[in-house]
């Protein structure tokens, strides 16, 4: 090997929470992680070898076998599958003469299937050596591989553009550009107030978490600030990983300083000297952009010691995931940062008192933090001037699937669904179903297009708003394929800790495969319901509790889809 392993380790200190960064580094250098490397990492970080091995095998982006010099990750998430991504995968396999998960004998290419790359607005998509590309179904694999074209930031729209105004309008890593567009105004105003006043302002705004759970943000900040232990940590959860969700990617790529600003505000309010941004491993380009922005912020004195001469210290570090949706669950995310397998912890105790490294931790989604920065710049009153009483402000919606212009659309809460679709140029074809809230969400019917897109408006109709996913499926699509993609997603992403989810996601997939083959019996469907309900009631964490929600909602709305339809050509698991 060109690089001695000890040299590679020299930039680390030997802490347990460095295990995943070291594994990333080792894989980057050697294109795989060998048993020898793992043994050395274990010795270096003072943990049993079995623990490092457990971590390396948990995350799907860590490979124990050498990968090709060109590593191709093809997305088979719901939207990419709808747009023909898995058919192209078969073409690629045939062209390269390898199956997904394998490397060509000459070591040139390796192929990997990913459950979702978060590029649903650019579907069907792939990452070629970390470069996000759109798959052109009509182009021969060879010419596609030779000249992959990097995709742009993506379509943005809506009104008012409070959070996304700078996206696409500035050079994302140019601090001056950010300044010129009111950057750090919210942070400067924050520094003029006491932490308690800042928290009160966020509480007045009525901001709720944008990761999907909609927990009141101000309350979370107050709880963390009030926890007795120190130090406190703040974490930005940039691990959006659910099919149909890509808004955080657009914010990170388009306006990374805004996230840094949100974290500075939160850090100041809570009294946390250290922040982490946990970003999913499938986001190499956003990670690079964010890293550049953090370096620029350090250079300009916005991060580090005595920020802006006001005696406030704040350090910020990026931690990359490695292919595990479960790490979006806050306690699994803590485990991941601490160098463990991403398996959730039991709550209580809650993160606000016992979070990362068992210290009080405030964890917020990317969009939540950007919104906090906007609120501090413009005030809670201004924020409440749009939206509804119970869902004030604006929201980023991820429109994908069968709409004319898939992308991120920012609008006030409460916009009727059809107006939202109109922003994206309207639907393509006739609408069959709309998946709201993402893979863990539920289906809406085409006659529900007048529903207001607010937490309470959708809740009345028994639908979730979640993280703002609006995935449109037209009548040309086989709904069973969407269900299969969801079942595959959860079977792949279950961490395996609790029995109902570990087994339920697998049997759910087994039955959906039968549905797709046209072999399902009424008994199978009863079992599907029973397994789904058990996962919902008995699973350890939110992943298992929602792993059946979309499928159960489809079963309620379209029971006929689940029984006895013969297999269509070209459909495969």
């Amino acid at each position, binding site marked *: 090997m060109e690089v001695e392993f000890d040299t590679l380790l020299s930039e680390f200190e030997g802490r347990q929470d460095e295990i995943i960064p070291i594994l990333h580094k080792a894989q980057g250098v050697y294109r795989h992680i060998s048993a020898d490397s793992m043994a050395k990492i274990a010795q270096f970080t003072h943990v049993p070898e*079995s623990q490092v*091995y457990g971590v390396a*095998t948990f995350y799907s982006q860590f490979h124990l076998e050498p990968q090709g010099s060109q590593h191709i990750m093809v997305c088979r998430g719901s939207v990419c599958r709808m747009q023909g991504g898995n058919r192209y995968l078969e073409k690629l396999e045939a062209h390269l003469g390898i199956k997904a998960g394998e490397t060509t004998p000459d070591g040139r290419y390796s192929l990997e299937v990913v459950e979702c790359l978060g590029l649903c607005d650019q579907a069907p998509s792939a990452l070629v050596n970390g470069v996000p590309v759109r798959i052109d179904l009509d182009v021969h694999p060879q010419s596609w591989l030779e000249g992959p074209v990097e995709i742009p930031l993506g379509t943005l729209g809506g009104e008012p553009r409070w959070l996304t105004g700078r996206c696409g309008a500035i050079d994302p890593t140019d601090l001056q550009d950010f300044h010129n567009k009111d950057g750090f105004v919210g942070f400067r105003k924050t520094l003029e107030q006491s932490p308690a006043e800042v928290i009160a302002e966020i509480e007045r705004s009525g901001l709720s978490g944008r990761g999907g759970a909609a927990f009141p943000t101000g309350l979370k900040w107050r709880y963390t600030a009030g926890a007795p232990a120190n130090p406190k940590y703040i974490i930005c959860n940039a691990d959006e990983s659910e099919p149909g969700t890509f808004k955080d990617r657009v914010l990170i790529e388009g306006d990374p300083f805004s996230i840094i600003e949100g974290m500075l505000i939160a850090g100041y309010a809570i009294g946390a000297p250290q922040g982490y941004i946990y970003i999913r491993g499938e986001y190499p380009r956003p990670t690079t952009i964010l890293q550049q922005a953090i370096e620029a912020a350090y250079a300009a004195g916005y991060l580090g010691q005595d920020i802006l001469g006001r005696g406030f210290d704040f350090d910020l570090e990026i931690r990359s995931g490695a292919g595990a949706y479960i790490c979006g669950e806050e306690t699994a995310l803590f485990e991941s940062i601490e160098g463990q*397998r991403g398996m959730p912890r039991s709550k209580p105790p809650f993160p606000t008192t016992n979070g990362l490294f068992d210290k009080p931790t405030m964890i917020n989604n990317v969009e939540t933090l950007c919104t906090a920065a906007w609120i501090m710049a413009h005030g809670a009153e201004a924020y409440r001037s749009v939206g509804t009483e119970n869902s004030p402000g604006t929201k980023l919606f991820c429109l994908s699937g069968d709409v004319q212009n898939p992308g991120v659309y920012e609008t006030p809460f409460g916009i009727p669904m059809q107006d939202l679709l109109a922003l994206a140029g309207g639907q393509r074809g006739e609408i069959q179903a709309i998946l709201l809230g993402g893979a863990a969400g539920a289906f809406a019917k085409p006659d529900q297009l007048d529903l207001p897109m607010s937490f309470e408006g959708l809740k009345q109709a028994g639908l979730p708003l979640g993280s703002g996913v609006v995935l449109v499926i037209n009548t040309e699509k086989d709904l069973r394929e969407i269900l299969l993609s969801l079942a595959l997603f959860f079977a792949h992403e279950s961490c*395996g800790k609790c029995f109902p989810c570990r087994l339920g996601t697998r049997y759910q997939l087994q039955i959906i495969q039968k549905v797709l083959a046209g072999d399902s019996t009424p*008994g199978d469907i009863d079992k599907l319901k029973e397994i789904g309900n058990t996962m919902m009631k*008995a699973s350890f964490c939110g992943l298992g509790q929602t792993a059946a929600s979309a499928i159960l909602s489809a079963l309620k709305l379209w029971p006929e889809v689940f029984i006895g339809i013969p297999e269509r050509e070209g459909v495969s698991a």
Partner: protein
Amino acid sequence: MRKPVYFTIDGQEICAEKGMNILDAAQDNDIYIPHLCHHPDLKPVGACRLCGVEIDGGRMVMSCMTPVQDGIQVITDSPTIHQSRTAIMEMLVATHHMDCLACKAATDCELLKTASYLGLDVERLADLRPALPLRPVDRSNPFFNFDPNKCIVCGICVRTCDEIVGLGALGYIERGYHTVIGTFDDKPFVDSICESCGECVSRCPVGALAPKRPEVVAREVETTCVYCGVGCGIYLGVKGDQIVSVRADRERPTNEGSLCVKGRYGFNFINHRDRLTKPLIKKNGQFVEAEWDEALEMVASKFTESKGDQFAALASAKCTNEDNYLIQKFTRAVMGTNNVDHCARL
């Protein structure tokens, strides 16, 4: 005892220590709540989701994760709970290699106990069972086997090796449905850092980690392990006139249910044909069997000839503290020398 907490389980009044969880309190009172991932020696993890009970008039909580509270009314079974347990167990049993008759867990299987408690329907299970090839059994360890086809991934073995033994020989590999238990780099046990203490084997709720020679015994005899001065409490399992198994005594404060490889598996010497059962005295260059009186007399006379600093005693760590005390006393008072030493000092 810590502060007592009074509450009811299925209407029965229970008194437990504050801080205890509902499941342990139930077990202490001989009330069975199905569970597969909990062991009283380990921190609760709430993984199997079978120990769900209803409190506060219908809210389902995992009894292993929920501390006892004054006045709560715990219900251990209801149609909702039963349905949830049955669905989980059906899926679990459908992936489990069911060869109960040949299984080394024998009558000790928690999976079988839970299945019997719930009354699982075999017909329904047949439908679910995926056609998967059996994985090879790891027979590399001299004392126990690991059969991954029977493993339910409860994690008790992993946590035992981590929390009790402090070794970390075992871990989880892969994730989700593909999660398996194994050693570093998925090596056979014998090539791993495993010290064969068998702590995981003794806690495995099914037949995945099972001794090579499991025995259902006729009776057990309480005694103290002879291997070292720690004095672990053990129960020797007896069949006919043979000792066939060793089980750790959970009540003995010395070891609280733990044993090392020697204490747990090293009992073959008891019935070994090479074992000395009579003293040997060397006569004309040959060892010949002698009676105890003759042997002791010979030692006494040689000791008498060797009093003073020409004598030294080296004691063994296999002896108890009391034995070691006596040796130094004997050496000083009877043999008249301070030449006393002990192997553990080295």
